[in-house]
């Protein structure tokens, strides 16, 4: 069992209250940072830790912080991205619900490092009950002098607010989030300028994920060097993994980065094996936008090495034989699941969530959904598979924000690894639409 940085006290009764949270060491990082460290020293510790953004992109957090422009007389902002909407991802919601003060503490320490005097937590509107929990924690922090004016007598002031979204996956993209936080449609902005130069209200802004910010207090308390000792290679520290799908124990697990994938799926400490004693068919390891991998490639790389839960190992082989750690949303498919149906389902999601700003995304996601729907429902044409590959290629890399890539990758990967299932659906329209016609890819042998 690895070190629990984020979840050590998660099941302590009353940990959501300030009193219990402080009894277990809460807010020590705020006191340490404000009383003994300069903002630059906090940034340096985060750089040393090797912490990478936990929202999906995996960009080094300390480096992102150091890009923040610091013009005189202009406010700076820290915005927490709590718009967790990627299918398969539910770690941030779970964490905020269970341990809200850990995020508040991270926001204070991080805001100090960045020189922000007003910070926001942008949370998806569907999680209004979590917003209430956070607001209660923030009110407690204000009452205790941990927020507001002159925190710990340091002369540092900070106001922290929570803002709800309105139901739009695109608002997880940082510039769309900023548009939404300004009360507009969540249309992504062109970059540059990047938020570090012109972000919220045209001021320098850092946008970080919930888990990223919640990791900062441990780094400040224990040093970045200690954090960097955990994990493997450039995948330092621990990671929250949301595990779902056909496994015995869906849930959120904190792992040391570098745990073997096989151990994560089959050990009782984590997923507990495949549901109902079935065989593993495939895994989407990092949220619905990352490429799916068949069982043999999620357990071992193309070179035959053990696949690990780390940024590098999961991406080993590029998209030909690898995938991504992404947000750490691990979706498991058993042998009965239909890849075509699942691909259509995700395609519908991305079509629904495209903001419509870029033509390749707006039109392409609709095309892909339509073609996948007709294949799934027994009306596919032989040329449809290549058509899907072509449309995915034309979307990828041709949009303002990464939603286009997120829509294209799952389709391209499903065809790359499970082309036989798409072909089977097209060749056997009647069986494809029959109830209970599952694991269709292997039915070719008996129905051809």
């Amino acid at each position: 069992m690895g070190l629990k940085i984020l979840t050590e006290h998660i099941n302590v009764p009353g940990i959501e209250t300030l009193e219990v949270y402080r009894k277990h060491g809460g807010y020590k990082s705020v006191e340490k940072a404000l009383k003994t460290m300069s903002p630059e020293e906090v940034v340096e510790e985060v750089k040393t830790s090797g912490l990478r953004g936990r929202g999906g992109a995996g960009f080094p957090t300390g480096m992102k912080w150091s890009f923040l422009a610091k013009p005189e007389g202009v406010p700076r902002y820290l915005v927490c991205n709590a718009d967790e909407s990627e299918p398969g991802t539910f770690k941030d919601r779970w964490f905020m619900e269970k341990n809200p003060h850990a995020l508040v503490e991270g926001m204070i320490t991080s805001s100090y490092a960045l020189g922000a005097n007003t910070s926001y937590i942008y949370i998806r509107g569907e999680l209004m009950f979590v917003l209430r929990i956070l607001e209660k924690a923030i009110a407690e922090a204000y009452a205790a002098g941990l927020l507001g004016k002159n925190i710990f007598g340091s002369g540092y002031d900070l106001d922290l607010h929570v803002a709800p979204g309105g139901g739009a996956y695109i608002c997880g993209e940082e510039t769309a989030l900023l548009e939404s936080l300004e009360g507009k449609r969540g249309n992504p902005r062109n970059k540059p300028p990047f938020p570090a130069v012109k972000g919220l209200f045209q001021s320098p802004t850092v946008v970080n994920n919930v888990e990223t910010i919640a990791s900062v207090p441990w780094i400040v308390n224990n040093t970045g060097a200690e954090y960097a000792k955990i994990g493997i290679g450039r995948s330092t520290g621990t990671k929250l993994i949301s595990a779902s799908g056909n496994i015995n124990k869906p849930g959120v697990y904190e792992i040391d980065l570098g745990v073997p994938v096989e151990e994560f799926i089959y050990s009782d400490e984590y997923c507990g094996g495949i549901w109902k004693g079935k065989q593993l068919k495939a895994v989407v390891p990092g949220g619905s936008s990352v490429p799916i991998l068949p069982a043999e490639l999620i357990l071992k790389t193309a070179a035959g090495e053990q696949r690990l839960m780390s940024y590098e190992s999961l991406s080993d082989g590029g998209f030909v034989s690898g995938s991504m750690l992404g947000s750490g949303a691990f979706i498991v498919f058993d042998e009965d699941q239909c890849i075509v149906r699942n691909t259509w389902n995700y395609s519908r999601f991305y079509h629904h969530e495209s903001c419509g700003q870029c033509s390749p995304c707006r039109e392409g996601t609709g095309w892909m959904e339509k073609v996948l729907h007709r294949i799934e429902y027994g009306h596919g044409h032989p040329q449809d598979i290549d058509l899907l590959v072509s449309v995915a290629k034309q979307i990828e890399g041709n949009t303002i924000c990464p939603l286009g890539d997120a829509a294209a990758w799952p389709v391209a990967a499903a065809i790359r690894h499970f082309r036989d299932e798409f072909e089977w659906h097209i060749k056997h329209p009647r069986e494809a639409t029959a109830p209970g016609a599952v694991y269709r890819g292997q039915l070719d042998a008996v129905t051809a």
Partner: protein
Amino acid sequence: MAETLNEVTFSDAAMAEIQRYISHYPEGRQKSALLPILHIAQAEFGGWVSPEVMDKVAQILDIQPIEVYEVATFYTMFNLKPVGKHVLEVCRTGPCCLRGADQLIETLKQKLNIEEGETSADGMFTLKPVECLASCGTGPMLQVREVFYENIDSEQRVDEFLEMMRSKEHETPTWAQ
């Protein structure tokens, strides 16, 4: 129910909450409070936002009505036509489907005798399939207002859920308590 702008009146508790959200933003940036205010308006006026309500929101924020319309129509959480007493927002996305979300939607359609997007004849339920609700490990699930109902994975649980909801009043939002 077609109100005129002057007939749309927020309660004192709602107005206090609106002012609280506006105070979170720098002077002149009050439009930032638009989304939270639309949530408050929806809770205040029967679960949906009419054009008259949106006009009132524009008036409160001192912005143009079009600025409210374009936002309310972009985000999926805002209902632009009347809905039933309980809006059942059922997650229909991949991970929930691996645990039976498709079946849950079909069962609800049969039991309520409605299609997706429709309201039951008694005005009690509106069925609204939605995309991922960050409850992938506890699917199939649905949301009613601010409450998640998870692991609804059998017909018996659907029956129990509907029975409970039929006798349930909406919970009062925290800001109005």
